[in-house]
């Protein structure tokens, strides 16, 4: 079956602009994670959805970042007033059941965001 997909694969924007990054999880997966990965670093947790609700958004760095998952499937990460420090690869992962303790996470290929 299809894996996790993310669009766009690359996004170049100017400082101050608004961007949306999309994640299509594996069908039927209820858990969805967003991470941010900078060069040479491990993925940094941003937010976790269980179904439609954000079960934990404590990793979002500030109020310029927001994510939604209105129907419990596709998720969109939204970044307002982008800054150069937002440049990174944004990874999405999904998992079949609640909680990462019991289930592996399946990662998408990521969106490389570059803020000029």
């Amino acid at each position: 079956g299809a894996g996790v997909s993310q669009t766009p694969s690359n996004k170049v924007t100017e400082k101050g602009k608004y961007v949306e990054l999309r994640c299509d999880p594996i069908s039927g997966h209820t858990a969805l994670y967003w991470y941010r990965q900078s060069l040479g670093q491990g993925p940094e947790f941003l937010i976790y959805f269980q179904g439609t609700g954000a079960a934990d958004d404590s990793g979002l760095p500030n109020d310029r970042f927001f994510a939604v998952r209105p129907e419990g499937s596709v998720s969109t990460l939204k970044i307002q007033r982008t800054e150069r420090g937002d440049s990174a690869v944004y990874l999405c992962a999904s998992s079949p059941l609640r909680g990462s303790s019991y289930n592996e996470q399946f990662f998408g290929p990521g969106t490389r965001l570059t803020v000029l």
Partner: protein
Amino acid sequence: QQPVQSPQAVILREGEDAVINCSSSKALYSVHWYRQKHGEAPVFLMILLKGGEQKGHDKISASFNEKKQQSSLYLTASQLSYSGTYFCGTEIMTGNQFYFGTGTSLTVIP
């Protein structure tokens, strides 16, 4: 809260063994291990759920000492395909956050 991994980097010749360690300052529900190749997404290797549990996956195995909040990944008779960056990932008791470790770059040379 990010787990610390050691070593940061290791170079092996094909056929040699390696151990990667992961240590957390928080109590853990579980430890995951992932491998990421350059320019690619992390790929799942295994989950360990109980204190002292060990798991094996071909020539890659791992242990999890819940009391010490530590896990180790063992790679035996390394192959060229093992090259990549290895991350442990942990979920702590109190939340839904998932933290990846600092990473270990492993290079296997012929």
